[in-house]
């Protein structure tokens, strides 16, 4: 015959077992992804040994695997991400500030909010097609060459932008914007309302409150979101392929002057890798592996800087 006390002891044992089992399941889930990632990294690094060299980083692509380098892709990606950041940050952060600080919570705001969230989930290839129509072709409107005189130099470009860096950057901007907006909104929302009230109570205008108190407090979150969005853009292949970015190119953007760079044709690292993988010569597999390592290092540097920035700023800000 069991007493209530025995029942309790049995259930206690069972509850401890449950707790331990749940911990094991969770750690299994973690290690599963870590091991897969490690296998991938080791395999890629192993194949690239002997293929990564200073020459690989500074040479252009070639039909001979031994001669192929990633310089065009590296510089293309650099320009692409730089311009994307330039377009993405003011528009994305501006939109987030409007939605969080200014917009009245009515049906229109809700519709905008819903659309931003939905855009974040749209496949990147769709953005590629949009970018092709809007920037490369500009809906087939008239072809026109422009020369922009800047006082000390001039910049030549065509409208529509064609298969140039700026078309790619604008497309990646569209792709990154929803993520940047949502991350910035989260960051702004995490700033306690009491900080805003304290600033208002001291006779600050709305702009002064946002500029001096809200934005600095939200900055780590905003920057983290921006860098994560940009590192995703750095790895994007599909939209650039749809845009018709060059696959074989033997010069980097900016050859005819830095200001001319946005209007030069380009390729990007992921696209370059994609093409190497497709080559018939098996040796190109190793070139692709070397390219992947370079791309991963670039991604790691970007994510690392995101973590550093967050850590650096958050030391100062504690609620």
């Amino acid at each position, binding site marked *: 015959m069991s007493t209530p006390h025995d029942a309790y002891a049995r259930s206690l044992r069972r509850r401890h077992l449950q707790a331990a089992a749940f911990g094991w399941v969770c750690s299994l889930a973690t290690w599963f992804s870590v091991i897969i990632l490690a296998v991938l990294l080791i395999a890629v690094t192993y194949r690239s040994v002997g293929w990564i060299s200073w020459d690989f980083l500074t040479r252009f692509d070639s039909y001979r695997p031994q001669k192929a380098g990633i310089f065009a892709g590296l510089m293309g990606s650099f320009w692409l991400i730089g311009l994307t950041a330039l377009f993405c940050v003011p528009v994305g952060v501006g939109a987030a500030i409007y939605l969080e600080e200014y917009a*009245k*919570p009515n049906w229109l705001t809700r519709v905008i909010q819903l659309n931003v969230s939905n855009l974040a989930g749209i496949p990147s290839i769709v953005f590629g097609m949009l970018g092709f129509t809007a920037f490369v072709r500009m809906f087939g409107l008239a072809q026109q060459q422009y020369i922009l005189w800047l006082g000390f130099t001039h910049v030549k470009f065509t409208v529509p932008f064609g298969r140039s860096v700026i078309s790619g950057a604008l497309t990646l901007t569209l792709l990154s914007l929803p993520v940047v907006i949502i991350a910035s909104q989260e960051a702004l929302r995490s700033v*306690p309302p*009491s*900080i*805003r*009230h*304290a*600033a*208002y*109570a*001291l*006779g*600050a*205008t709305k702009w*002064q409150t946002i500029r*001096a*108190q809200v934005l*600095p*407090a939200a900055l780590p979150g905003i920057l983290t979101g921006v860098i994560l969005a940009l590192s995703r853009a750095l790895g994007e292949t599909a939209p650039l392929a749809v845009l018709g970015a060059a696959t074989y190119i033997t010069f980097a953007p900016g050859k005819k002057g830095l200001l001319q760079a946005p209007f030069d044709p380009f390729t990007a690292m992921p696209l370059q890798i994609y093409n190497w993988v497709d080559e018939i010569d098996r040796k190109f597999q190793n070139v692709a592996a070397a390219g992947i390592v370079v791309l991963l290092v670039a991604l790691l540097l970007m994510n690392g800087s995101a973590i550093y920035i967050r850590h650096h700023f958050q030391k*100062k*800000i*504690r*609620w």
Partner: protein
Amino acid sequence: MSTAPKSTGMSGSATPPLVLGAASQGPAPAGKPKFETRGMGFFYGSHQALTEINLLIPEKAVTALIGPSGCGKSTYLRSLNRMNDIIDGTRVTGSVLLDGEDIYAPDVDVVALRKRVGMVFQKSTPFPKSIFDNVAFGPRIGGLNKLSELKDLVEHCLKQAALWNEVKDRLRDSAMALSGGQQQRLCIARALATNPEVLLMDEPASALDPASTARIEDLIFELKQNYTIVIVTHNMQQAARISEFTGFFCLGRLVEVGQTKQMFTNPAEKETEDYITGRFG
């Protein structure tokens, strides 16, 4: 409960019951009224939080607002510098006059009003910046940028708030590293830095230990030489210790106003007496 507040010690007068009417019962309040509230009502949407508030707040004196939770005393305080404007769907009826001017008039600049009427919140709200930048924020947004002047002003305000000796060697350190009591005094220094005429305090010591509370009370005592102070407090002893005048709010109405001494020894209303002696609230 009577709809109109009765003024303690004011016998049989037909004029609106006001704090100043208590003059015959004790020393006359110094100076003219700073704030004058006439028939004021306050609405959150359709919910009426304050009804028919008539209150004079004398200049350069401490006026305490007491009453049970949810009675509207904080709402009233926040309406004096229009902090309630931030909340959507709020509405004020009647009039609130500062030096005789209606602060809810359409041509009133809220930013300029809040510079004149400073505020200290219940929870200390230092900005996540240095101690110096916290105090300098108000003057800076007002256009003062000369570092030498800012330095003098910051020192002056920190001294006024009795914080200078504790922080003078670490003005560049984060304000978040200060203790709770120090943070609240920093917020007072910050509020003083815009050179306000009125200081509104919403339970400034309710989250502090007795020692810090005593310091804040001493500070309020000092500050009333130069500022008009309105303080909301849950602490009956605190109201009795620091204020010259007290208003008792209950259920969105001002039940009674008068000189603090009078009110705590001989309240006119039964409700006031019950509240003060701890029988309810």
